[in-house]
């Protein structure tokens, strides 16, 4: 929080944050209001209490799991040099690219009782020594191994931007390597770890595809059952409010985790501790750990999909890629790029405005912009529809013939708006985590030297929070390419994306046909992730070099 000096001139920034928050929160508010306003009897699921407990258990186990796996791997690739490290460093982000609506089936058809893995084990060693897969621990394991990249990416960026002097000072003062890690490095990375963890928790909360496959009844499953099975959107939206409350708790927890501490550091953007060369068996062990983490959420599914795609190509060589392929891909990429740019721009402006104004109100408003991530995707979609229906009513009431017309579902505008709502959280978390670490005195100095807030944004905050900005961009891009429920619900006629294409086939169990487009989704993530790591020198850093 910057002091009161010069505050009057910056009130415009306050209004901007409030405006952005209002625009982004409108659909979520529409759902909440719709849920609470409903006069009809609302039926809540009979086993709601059990659902709440299940949700909590899953959130805690996946949270701990991703923190250990994501944080651990980030530390490993930061401090160690081992075989394949450079490739693995960026590949560890790729599980994020695997769509949940594909992974559940691929995983179970591979690892469940009748799948090839267990059949092989049964033939070799006899029956009954593998625990059942389709359980809460099974779901927790799979979700951990697909969601850890959120923590990993944030932690990796955080470790890399820590100035080496901090770690070196601790070591010079006699701290062991692990003591330096626990006492210096981890506390400094806490905002980033907390941000990654919050994202993971929200993913767990709103996931439907994976939990449904594993027979785990979270509150989100309740939402969908109530809605799709009972045509009861009121009850479903009330349940969504419950999901949202969970998310509020998560975000409050994240603030608590960050505490009152400041995370700014001297010496500007650093380059992290100098890596140690892991030789021989230790080096290969490190490689193996990374490969294991990648195996379940990425390597095996990709292998299986590739197998199916080849089978399909053998059967029907012409049918694999048809003429619409390029169009769908272009649509996916355009929407994802525009979304990523918009989310990053808005996040940056909001985070910057917070610095300029401070105070509880804008801080709360900024938090509100991230709630779209904490409501099941399809509910956000309906929220957008409802919000625009209300707007239409208002415009009509104001005397405009025909109202707003078919604004949401008649063009791509609805999808982009919904994506902005949905993906503000990953963008804002990443940008904010990075900007938090910029010294407030830096901002104040710039202010006192007469720089305008806009100039501070572009010349001070943007360059210093650069790694967060890049991380935000890539996270949103990867998320937006695989996103399904919103585009399915809001797209206009004649508009389709790769993810819709995959889902149309997967829903009808044409897995062999769905394999190739699913691989395309995964492949599109490779380029931005690789570029991010190169650009940010997260792969191979020059000793002592600052970006």
């Amino acid at each position, binding site marked *: 929080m910057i002091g009161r000096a010069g505050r009057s001139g910056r009130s415009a920034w306050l209004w901007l944050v409030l405006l952005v928050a209002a625009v982004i929160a409108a659909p979520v508010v529409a759902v909440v209001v719709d849920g609470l306003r409903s006069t009809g009897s609302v039926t809540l699921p009979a086993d709601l209490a059990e659902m709440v407990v299940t949700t909590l258990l899953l959130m805690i186990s996946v949270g701990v799991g991703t923190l250990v796996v994501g944080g651990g791997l980030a530390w490993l690739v930061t401090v160690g040099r081992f075989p394949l490290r450079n490739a693995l460093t960026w590949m560890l982000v790729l599980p994020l690219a695997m769509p949940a609506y594909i992974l559940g089936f691929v995983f179970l058809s591979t690892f469940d009782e009748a799948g090839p893995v267990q059949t092989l084990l049964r033939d070799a060693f006899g029956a009954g020594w593998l625990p059942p897969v389709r359980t809460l621990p099974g779901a927790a394991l799979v979700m951990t191994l697909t969601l850890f990249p959120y923590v990993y990416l944030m932690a990796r960026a955080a470790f890399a931007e820590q100035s080496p002097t901090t770690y070196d000072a601790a070591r010079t003062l006699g701290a062991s390597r692990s003591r330096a890690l626990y006492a210096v490095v981890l506390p400094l990375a806490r905002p980033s770890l907390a941000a990654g963890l919050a994202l993971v928790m929200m993913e767990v909360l709103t996931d439907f595809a994976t939990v449904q496959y594993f027979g785990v*009844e979270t509150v989100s499953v309740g939402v969908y059952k109530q809605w799709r099975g009972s045509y009861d959107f009121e009850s479903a939206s009330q349940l969504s409010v419950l999901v949202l409350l969970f998310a509020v708790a998560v975000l409050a927890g994240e603030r608590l985790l960050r505490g009152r501490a400041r995370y700014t550091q001297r010496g500007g953007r650093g380059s992290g501790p100098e890596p140690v060369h892991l030789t021989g068996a230790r080096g290969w062990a490190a490689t193996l750990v990374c490969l294991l983490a990648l195996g379940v959420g990425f390597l095996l599914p990709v292998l299986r999909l590739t197998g199916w795609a080849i089978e399909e190509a053998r059967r029907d060589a012409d049918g694999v890629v048809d003429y619409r392929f390029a169009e769908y891909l272009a649509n996916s990429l355009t929407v994802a790029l525009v979304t990523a740019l918009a989310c990053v721009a808005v996040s940056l402006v909001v985070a910057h405005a917070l610095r300029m104004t401070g105070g509880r109100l804008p801080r709360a408003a900024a938090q509100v912009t991230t709630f779209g991530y904490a409501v099941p995707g399809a509910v956000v979609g309906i929220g957008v529809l409802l919000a625009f229906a209300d707007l239409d009513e208002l415009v009509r009431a104001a005397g405009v013939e025909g109202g707003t017309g078919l604004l949401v579902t008649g063009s791509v505008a609805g999808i982009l708006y919904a994506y902005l709502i949905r993906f503000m959280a990953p963008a804002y978390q990443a940008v904010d985590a990075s900007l938090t670490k910029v010294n407030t005195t830096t901002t104040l100095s710039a202010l006192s030297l007469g720089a305008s807030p806009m100039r501070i944004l572009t010349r001070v905050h943007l360059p210093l929070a650069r790694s967060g900005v890049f991380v935000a961009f890539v996270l949103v891009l990867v998320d937006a390419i695989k996103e399904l429920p919103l585009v399915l619900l809001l797209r206009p006629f004649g508009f389709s994306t790769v993810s819709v294409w995959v889902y149309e086939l997967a829903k009808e169990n044409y897995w062999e046909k769905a394999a190739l487009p699913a691989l395309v989704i995964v492949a599109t993530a490779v380029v931005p992730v690789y570029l991010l790591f190169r650009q940010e020198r997260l792969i191979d850093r020059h000793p002592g070099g600052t970006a």
Partner: protein
Amino acid sequence: MRTPALVVCTLALSAATAGCGIFGGSDEEPADIHVYSARHYDLENAFGEFEEETGLKVEFLFGEDAELLQRLETEGEGSPADLFFTVDAGNLWAADQAGVLDPVESEVLEGAVPEEYRDSDGSWYGLALRARTVVYNPDNVDPSEFDTENTYAGLGDPKWQGRLCMRDSTEAYTQSLVTALMESYGRDEAERIVQSWLDNDVDIMSNDILLLEAVDAGTCDVAIVNHYYLARELEEKPDMNVELFWASQDGLGVQLNLSGGGVVTTSDAKADAQQLLEWLATDGQDAFVGDNHEFPVNPDVKPDEAIEAFGPFEPMPIDAEAYGRLNADAIDLLEEVGYE
């Protein structure tokens, strides 16, 4: 200096979020008939054939049942949809209840679609049927083990302990099956039946293909699946060790799910939409059920060879209103007994 910068920021934001309608519309001429469909099987081929025959261009948008219905409702008068297709009798009933379907009077449709597979007011017409029946692994099961009168309920017999696999409760087909049991036997008895499956340690899976793979591998002896998945799998893997058994043939008959559609109230091309619906119920039946191995609803149209090989069967009567009305109760029941 500050104000222009802010304006630029705000403008950039609004441009990014709202100004991107450019890649929304395609250059192609607009279609004559717009279809919202929660089913996707072979619609493309069927609509292509229709276009060739009539010159009317059809465009469709695939989505989830509940979501599409909600979209139709909120779009209101502005909705581009002319026809709405969905995959479950309960969903057809719900769409009618929501008032988005317009009754159609048509001799062609009344002649083609048997009375039990259409709405009495003509708000919707069924087009294809999916049978939800029992499949088994012939190495482990002798078909004489099945209760021929109440096959679904009979799976609660202790002799099936540890041998059953079924779909999860989020699946509409599971909900419909339980609804059918409730409608046939009453709620208490239906609850007892579901409980007896659970007592037999039924293995609950989340995909019909996974069920078939499990029966094939012998990790399950018996499963309840949709008939066309077996037909399709057998086409690809003829040596699959799975046989089909028509359930409850000496009793109420096999449970069916009806897929169909109706003309949307706000449509501005109702005559064309009706023409498409009529075509799908007659000449277009083959194309509509086509490669998906569903049963055509029109008795004059023969089912394809793969499913004819399963032999004839007696269907359980469909009461769309009961499916629509009782579905929520079925979900409650499943939750109460703890069926995941």
